[in-house]
């Protein structure tokens, strides 16, 4: 019965992008005219059984009166590992801001970074140092001799810059990203 399989595939696609439990009614409505709720229920059951078998990392859950596709609990650990791995390979908005402050104002001390950003940025700076985008560049000869930070060679390589003078000027940024385009 190709009908059932087709319906099941459609149900699976919808559950996969819904991001929340989907009610039977909604699925029936989308399935279109001539499709009975019973057939949709069969299709859901088909998807559910298909994911019960070994080799699937997903499951169909019946929650809050609807159905949703979710990962299986046995992979929770792997998922956390993955999200942690990904976090290490990405930049947060806070890290980007801090990197920007250091890039354009180097060498700069932690108190100066904190002052400009208005929040304590110690943890973020540490991350940037760990990721080798920022390095320590000596100490500032003021009270407390705080550490000075500057961007690294890796930073230049990543951004395709020959030297720091190649950073875009405010005028250039305005030209390319336009006014008010600062929000992503």
């Amino acid at each position, binding site marked *: 019965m190709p009908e059932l399989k087709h319906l099941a595939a459609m149900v699976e696609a919808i559950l996969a992008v819904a991001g929340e439990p989907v009610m039977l009614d909604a699925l029936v409505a989308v399935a279109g005219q001539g499709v009975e709720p019973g057939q949709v229920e069969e299709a859901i059951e088909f998807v559910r059984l298909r994911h019960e078998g070994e080799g699937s990392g997903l499951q169909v859950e019946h929650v809050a009166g609807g159905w949703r596709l979710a990962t299986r609990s046995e992979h929770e650990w792997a998922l956390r590992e993955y999200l942690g791995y990904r976090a290490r390979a990405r930049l947060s908005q*806070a890290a*980007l801001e801090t990197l920007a402050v250091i890039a354009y104002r180097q060498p700069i001390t932690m108190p100066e970074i904190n002052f400009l950003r208005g929040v304590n940025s110690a943890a973020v700076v540490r991350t940037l140092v760990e990721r080798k985008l920022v390095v320590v560049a000596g100490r500032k000869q003021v009270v407390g001799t705080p550490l000075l930070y500057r961007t690294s060679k890796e930073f230049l390589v990543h951004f395709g810059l020959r030297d720091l003078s190649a950073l875009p000027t405010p005028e250039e940024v305005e030209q390319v990203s336009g006014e008010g385009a*600062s929000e992503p």
Partner: protein
Amino acid sequence: MDPAVVGGEAPLRPSVVLPVFEGPLDLLLHLVREEKVSIWDIPIARICAQYHEALRAMEEMDLEIAGEYLVYAAWLLLIKSRLLLPRHEGEEKDPRQELVERLVEYEKVKAAAAELAGLVEMRRGVEAVRFAAPPAPEDVELDLEDVDVLALSRALRQVLERHVREHPQTLQLEPIRFSVREKIIELFDLIRRQRSFPLLSHLLTRPDRLESVTLLLAALELVRLGTARSHQRRPFAEIYLTPTGTALPMDALTDA
């Protein structure tokens, strides 16, 4: 051929359907195709006339004609006149050559664009799945690979704008004494390192006004000593300091 564009008859309403051209090359390519002639042997006189007619039609429809169209109009006329001159056998290249080359290149661009459009078309309905996931350890949305210098500069602007918002002018910190001599050395080092140093934004973001004043004095002193040059493209724009290559005469520095 769409009479609204190149037929020469003024349309009744300016809202008639009109092929939208992406520029002079697009229009030219369209005309060449309509003529069903080879791109390598364009009848310039005819195409030139049609091109001008098309511009006139666009004018009549109150379409804003970008400057590039006029540049190409002039170029076409130039080519036409060159073709009328007697040519020395085998010496000069065809006056149409460069235009043809650009059209050929542009045709490739258009084909590639159509190709890309086809790729997207094939992917309609292909959506990334969105699952309920365990919370990410941190708000990390930016793929470093796609973070470029523009993102960086924009981030800086956000910081500065926020900073200005949160620090109205009444800001008063502990009065610390800054020495011009110390600032001269500090600034000189910054300029040498960055090659093109944005003085204004540096001054405006110092935590202490007194420090800004001292820095300004130091900057003036550096210029006076011939160790730095200042540039400003227009009034109120950023002032850049660049090193002249002259070393800092340490003994000339007064301890202000």
